């Protein structure tokens, strides 16, 4: 894993000190809330419905054990004993006190963490596949490139006041687990005809009130040229992106209005002038970063483990967990263990201080001190010996972290909604809890199979509802919450934006409506079909019928 060197550390410390001064000026009344706003936003401090919120960056979703333990400590000391993992692989604290935030940032800096660029109209935290470096299907570990992007984008002097926020996601695997097609820039690693590894570059994806799937601007960019190419895209966006209307300011609108061909032309023209400049990264430097993410010291093991098989046959709950939450590792004898933060009826993505500390301990003992955060708001122990899985699960289970529901109907993404968020038009967390309870039975969930439900509490779409197989958008109709259902969304390599099924449902009706969709799917699915596959085969009509009858 990448370790900060003295330069990285120095930068974070200088930033922490700078913000402490700014908070001091605010608390002393030297600057108004108005003047303080841009300063706090640059440091991940939002004003929510009830309190300030602090969003801490987890670059490319990779954490070390000591970092996760510190996040737990911060939850205990500065918050009410929990934190919330987000769809951007970050963590948010909902209840810090402003005068204590500088101390929290100092405690973060001690473990090389910070809140830089987790808000504001700048390049945000780069996200990637949570299984990077472990997945059996990956072409190459994407994290060395993510780290280079992190450095290039941190305090980029030219791109700190963009028209709007800017999100980059990278996948090193053909099976996209990072939703790269719904990001401002999505990078997909692949090989060209000459056998070199590089990236397909997609631009203009995004969610929010006008969702788009990203379009390919370049089929292949070599690794050495990636950074100058990114700079060219950002310069074109900074110069030509709309600034007259904040809802039309994302690059997706520029791409949509000008057309991808026109944007490609501008970017290529810009790139031609900088591609041989100082942003060209040579092979030696890339090798240096690859080395920093070198695989841990795996033992040479047989893939089968007798004890593991025995535990599976003796313990049905463990077997269920393995079936849903354990994923194939590239190294024989190892597995990827997913830690669900979606207990039945719980708040999606929340983890308590002691849960964080437990996962940190387990990662140290069983996973080379490596933990990942997923954009679906779960945690991952990426490198666990199969022989250790039972021990890991037993510990997780005791701490209510062993729910066997990864990818199932209760593995819901939900934004904070009206419980926390000042922009919300409806609650989303309580609805996710009710759906989770309705489908709590594990056998039933397993029978339903992969089904992604995603809930947002307003049109900003922080809960990714547009790309849920079933998406739910909470709205407000004359003071009453109601929920609009979309079907057929998908954030994977086959990305698509869901279609609105019809009129919305009241809070009382919506869970039944979801259940009727699921029942319909079970009735009409063909063997091996997931919900999304059935929807793609039969279209909206059969589902519309169960929702609305003749209405």
């Amino acid at each position, binding site marked *: 894993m990448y370790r900060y060197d003295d330069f990285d550390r120095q930068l974070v410390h200088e930033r922490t000190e700078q913000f402490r001064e700014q908070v001091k000026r605010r608390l002393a009344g030297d600057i108004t809330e108005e003047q303080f706003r841009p300063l706090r936003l640059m440091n991940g401090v939002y004003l929510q419905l009830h309190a300030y919120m602090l969003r801490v960056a987890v670059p490319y979703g990779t954490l070390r054990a000591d970092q996760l333990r510190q996040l737990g400590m911060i939850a205990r000391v500065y918050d009410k004993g929990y934190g919330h993992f987000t769809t951007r692989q970050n963590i948010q604290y909902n209840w810090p006190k402003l005068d204590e935030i500088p101390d929290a940032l100092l405690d973060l800096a001690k473990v090389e963490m910070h809140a830089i660029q987790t808000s504001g109209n700048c390049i945000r935290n780069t996200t990637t596949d949570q299984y990077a470096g472990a997945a059996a299907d990956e072409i190459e570990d994407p994290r060395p490139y993510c780290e280079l992007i992190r*450095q290039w984008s941190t*305090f*980029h*002097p*030219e*791109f700190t*006041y963009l028209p709007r926020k800017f999100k980059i996601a990278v996948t090193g695997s053909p099976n996209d687990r990072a939703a790269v097609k719904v990001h401002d820039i999505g990078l997909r690693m692949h090989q060209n005809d000459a056998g070199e590894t590089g990236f397909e570059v997609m631009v203009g994806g995004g969610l929010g009130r006008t969702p788009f799937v990203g379009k390919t601007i370049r089929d292949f960019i070599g690794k050495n040229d990636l950074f100058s190419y990114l700079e060219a895209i950002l310069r074109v966006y900074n110069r030509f992106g709309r*600034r007259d209307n904040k809802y039309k300011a994302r690059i997706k609108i520029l791409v949509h209005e000008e057309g991808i061909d026109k944007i490609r032309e501008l970017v290529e023209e810009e790139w031609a002038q900088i591609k041989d400049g*100082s942003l060209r990264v040579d092979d030696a430097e890339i090798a240096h970063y690859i080395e920093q993410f070198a695989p841990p010291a795996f033992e040479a093991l047989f893939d089968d483990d007798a004890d593991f098989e025995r535990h599976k046959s003796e313990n049905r709950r463990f077997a269920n967990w393995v079936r849903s939450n354990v994923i194939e590792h590239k190294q024989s004898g190892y597995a990827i263990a997913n830690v669900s933060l979606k207990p039945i009826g719980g708040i999606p993505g929340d983890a308590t201080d002691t849960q964080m500390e437990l996962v940190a301990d387990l990662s140290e003992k069983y996973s080379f001190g490596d933990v990942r955060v997923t954009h679906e708001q779960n945690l991952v122990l990426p490198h666990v010996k199969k022989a250790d899985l039972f021990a890991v699960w037993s510990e997780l289970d005791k701490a209510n972290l062993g729910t066997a529901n990864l990818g199932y109907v209760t593995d819901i993404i939900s934004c904070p909604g009206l419980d926390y968020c000042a922009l919300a038009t409806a609650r989303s967390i309580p609805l996710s809890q009710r759906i989770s309870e309705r489908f709590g039975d594990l056998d039933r969930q397993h029978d339903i199979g992969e089904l992604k439900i995603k809930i947002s509490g307003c049109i900003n779409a922080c809960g990714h509802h547009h790309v849920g197989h079933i998406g739910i958008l909470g709205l407000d109709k004359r003071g009453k919450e109601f929920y609009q259902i979309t079907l057929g969304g998908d954030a994977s390599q086959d990305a698509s934006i869901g279609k609105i099924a019809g009129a919305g449902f009241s809070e009382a009706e919506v869970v039944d409506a979801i259940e009727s969709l699921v029942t319909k799917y079970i009735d009409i699915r063909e063997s091996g079909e997931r919900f999304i596959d059935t929807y793609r085969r039969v279209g909206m009509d059969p589902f519309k019928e169960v929702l609305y009858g003749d209405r």
Partner: protein
Amino acid sequence: MAIVKNDSVIEQEWITVDAEGDLPASDENLIVPLARFKEERDSLLGRNGGLGVQLNPGDAPEDLADDLDRLSIITVNFPAYTDGRGYSYGRVLRERMGFTGELRAVGDVLRDQILYMHRCGFDAYDLKVEGEVALNKVRAALKEMSVYYQPTGDGRVTAQSLRERRRAALQ
């Protein structure tokens, strides 16, 4: 109200006129918006005083390609600090077009943006505060950070090149 350049407060020696305003006497130093420069180029170049151009958001610095060596100053207007187009104009003018005259940030120029402006090639800042205060702000802003990741044309050494040097020294 105070212009800071090269670690000192300098005098305002330029008269800026807008699209329609009357031009001052021929020997006064004059700054005109880009659009007006393009329209009245020949007569403006024939004046006796110094000539500068102001870029506003949406302008293309490339339009000045043929005339850069006739301009002693280019001002870049930031109507609101949140409008970051001027940063790109700065880099294009300095790093690509090789402009060597004064590059002055005007408009909503605040302390927390000065370092970024400097990194993008600006060397003068027109601030809305008085002399000594303005100078102190610029000084503080320029030394707030000491680590830089991005190579720009500002001559600062990046973390990457320091790392390379260190690695080379160890070998």
